[in-house]
């Protein structure tokens, strides 16, 4: 860990201004950043601690949705009665992530911004285009069991590890920010995380002088909500594949569907065409498989992660069957 300065701005605008300085990094729960600093994967010169800013409330929006403060802890968000009642998929996704201790520290905005779990990213002796642009990707041709089969590039095949963000993608969340000059912006979650392309070091649309203040959820979509996380042990493991689904079925037909995926791609993955294709189809295995075809179109394994393609198909079909039977 390199020596750094520490500051605690009093307002969001001050935080944004401080964060725009060279070498600055915002810290809130610190559950990911501190680990990365110890390993010198991250070497900020200035730490901007926002954890005491008043961004820890959950409020109703006029539209009938919820505005979740950026600093709401994962534990609190999962346990919030309105979230549990109206956005069960989000509550379950949060509880499927990390451990109780980590959820007690981790924040909503920090969860969105967490870095990949690619082992080569965490080891500074190994090439990694995300950590050190131009150095290469050790996961290609190396250990890539946990890596992406969709949305990756020849520069980077890392996945985004969040569970929460997958549920938020299915719920069409919007990420709200404030800049140093007080300008506010709302970014749809599908535009928030970027694909690696030739610049895997750029992971989000967040600008250097922007601070996330909240995440808003639109009114809950109709249908049954399920979060299914497939992993190597029963708890405290990252998703190999996860599915956040909100699907309405009546009279044996799908009326609406939203399906987002974790573990498959560098960002929470969603294929709107696959959802539209399901609407008005009979809720049977053939329809589910057709949806899986659409989701997995262009999916490509890298050896160790080939299994994720059939696993994602089987998991999606199982989730859709479960919703149909619900």
């Amino acid at each position: 860990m390199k020596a750094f300065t520490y500051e605690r701005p009093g307002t969001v605008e001050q935080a944004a201004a401080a964060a725009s300085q060279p070498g600055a990094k915002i810290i809130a729960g610190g559950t990911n950043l501190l680990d990365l600093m110890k390993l010198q994967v991250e070497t900020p010169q200035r730490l901007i601690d926002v954890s005491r800013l008043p961004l820890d409330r959950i409020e109703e929006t006029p539209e009938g949705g919820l505005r979740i403060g950026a600093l709401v802890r994962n534990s609190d968000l999962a346990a919030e009665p309105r979230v549990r009642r109206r956005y069960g998929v989000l509550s379950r996704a949060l509880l499927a992530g990390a451990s109780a201790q980590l959820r007690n520290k981790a924040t909503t905005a920090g969860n969105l911004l967490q870095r990949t779990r690619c082992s080569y990213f965490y080891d500074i002796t190994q090439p990694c285009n995300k950590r050190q642009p131009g150095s290469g990707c050790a996961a290609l041709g190396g250990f890539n069991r946990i890596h992406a089969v969709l949305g990756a590039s020849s520069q980077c095949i890392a996945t985004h590890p969040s569970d929460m963000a997958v549920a938020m993608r299915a719920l069409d969340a919007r990420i709200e920010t404030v800049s140093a000059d007080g300008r506010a912006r709302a970014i749809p979650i599908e535009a928030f995380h970027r694909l690696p392309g030739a610049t895997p070091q750029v992971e989000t649309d967040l600008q250097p002088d922007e601070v996330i203040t909240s995440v808003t959820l639109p009114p809950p979509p109709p249908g049954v909500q399920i979060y299914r996380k497939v992993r190597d042990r029963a708890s405290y493991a990252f998703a190999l594949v996860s599915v956040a689904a909100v699907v309405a079925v009546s009279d044996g037909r799908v009326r609406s569907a939203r399906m987002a995926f974790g573990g498959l791609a560098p960002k929470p993955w969603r294929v709107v065409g696959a959802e539209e294709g399901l609407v008005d189809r009979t809720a049977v295995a053939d329809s589910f498989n057709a949806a899986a075809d659409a989701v997995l179109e262009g999916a490509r394994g890298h050896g160790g992660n080939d299994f994720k393609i059939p696993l994602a198909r089987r998991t999606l079909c199982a989730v859709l069957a479960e919703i149909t039977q619900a």
Partner: protein
Amino acid sequence: MQMNTPVGPNALDTVKDGWVGKPLDRVDGRLKVTGGATYSYEVLQAPNTAYGYVVQASIGKGRILSLNTRAAERAPGVLYVLTHLNAPPQGEGNHHEAHPVLTGPQVAYFGQPIAFVVAETFEQARAAAYLVEVSYDRQPGNFVLADNLNRARRPQSTGAPADSAVGDFDSAFAAAPVKLDVEYSTPQQAHAMMEPHASLAVWDGENLTLHTANQMLSQGRLAVARTLRIPVKNVRLVSPYIGGGFGAKLWVNADAILAAIAARQLHRPVKTALTRQQVFHVTTHRSDTVQRIRLGTDREGHILAIGHDSYSGNLPSEQSYEAAAMQTRTLYAGPNRLTRHRLAALDIPIASSMRAPGEAVGLLALECAMDELAEKLELDPIELRVRNEPDEDPERHVPYSSRHLVACLREGATRFGWASRHPRHGQVRDGRWLVGMGVAAATRGNPLQPSQATVRLGPDGIATVRMAMTDIGTGTYTILTQIAADMLGLPPDRIRIEIGDTAFPEAAGSGGSFGAASSGSALFDACNRLRGKLAAAAGVDARAARFADGRLQAGGQSRALTDLVGAGGLEADGEIRPGDTEHTFSQQSYGAHFAEVGVDADTGEVRLRRMLGVFAAGRVLNAKTARSQAIGGMVFGIGAALEEGLVLDRRSGAFVNHDLAEYLVPVHADVPAIEAFFLPELDDAANPLKSKGIGELGICGAGAALANAIYNACGARIRDYPITLDKLLPVLPTQS
């Protein structure tokens, strides 16, 4: 005393309602949960303690061309940077008890220590470590065991021979009416104990005190002295509390030697701890194995030929191999037998003992092969094992000291409800889960090691026990308390156990399931001698004396022990040495594991539903700590079956998943209803306590029971551990 003959009735048998065997709470439990137990890194020293941080090689094989430490040396707080250019010459340790560090520019394995940065604080040392600049001449390495099987050789063995043969295996196997010939593989595994390796070295003139997390202090003391080339009497190792070891702390690791060298150079105490990530490469791991099992039987399932070949890997300089075929020499009957171990020289971190070296992975292969054989024979897997129960050790032709494998299988079958298992796979469904049951035998060798103890009874009625024994979380403090309490007729709160210091008599240490038996027997002997002295002081025959309630009773007289010890107290030394019973008996502990698993029919996720272990392991010294040991071992088995495996990058020779986020071990949610049960047994050829080792028995065979349950659940026989869902997906049923 020496174990030359079975001990017969002794003092421990005659204690009425004694402490030995009772589920006494850990006597050090309160200290541990209140933070009062001081682990090596927590030892407070003079304020001038400096802190060290290890710098590791980032290539798998080659040579350091240049090592630039100037920037590190100029970094804030840095006192000293130790490298191969300024490290003192060191002596070679015996066997693999210690390794000299920073001996030259050669890099033998990825993550090898190449420098040690010492600073005023840990954070300064760590920051400066990243400033050390290294350039290498990379050389191609042999990293992968599977690619090097044809280069593997028979290892030099100091203990049991690497190979064994009885009868004519080849002919008998060829002629056997029923044959099984299968290959299993197990991955490299990490100990993943809670406490990382840590040391504090303090020199006083020519004398070194080393606070270090180490399982075998007496041996470690010799190794440190040899490596640092100083007299043994100048070295003291201290380790009263150890946060787990599982074999990773059997030897003196680089942290201890580096701290000792740096402290000597700086004339200051030096403290260091490996980070979790560093532990994976700097210390030892369990080798991966490739195992071939061949079983030939008659049509009724009687084994005619049993063969087990096992390959493992280690550094070219090491002879330590994974003795995975060892238990196959004693577990089942059969006239024609062949076991062979081969070792491949690989450019990987040091492979060494991990909990139940040999059996832990050997039984993952053998006990699944037995399950495969049972199916071929259309026999119940328990019945197959019963049919192959030997009358005597089938290779050494000596009697078993005690062996209750069949009783464990029968008792377990009843308790677990084995009769409800469907003999055909894939028949039981519970919602989305395919459900199956599996069984496996457990066996582990029962060694005894030389050990010494002193017990002193003071006029205050306190008995103080001293020995250089360790407690690595197993309960040593507690069982020694119980033994002394029963032998001296004192309540546990009158017993003081002082261990973890080589200033005390040499002791076996904790390893190989010999700790409790060896240290406890030495204490038993010391207490017996003290009883003799007390009886002499009372003027009675020791054999007629009874010790209870702090009193000696004999021939109608009753004397308080405090009246007999005099003003200075009375002291006695004791010792145990292995003897002829090692050779005249075949000594193992036994057990049977039962597991019920669910396999998710959609995703292939495997989740344990319930598990039972039934064991016969001699006298149980403490029902509570014994159960904890057994269950802990079974949890290890869950990990071995389902989760654990180091991922070796075949390009660099690095363990890619060198942290606990990606090296998975079982968490609470992986361990549902689990129970361990001990059958009553006394083994008087083992040691005077008539106990056998239990620290490793729980892991032996446990994973195989899960693997067999997976097969019973879904019909997938995965012979490559761990059994992760990607291996099951191709054989899962089509979704309905």
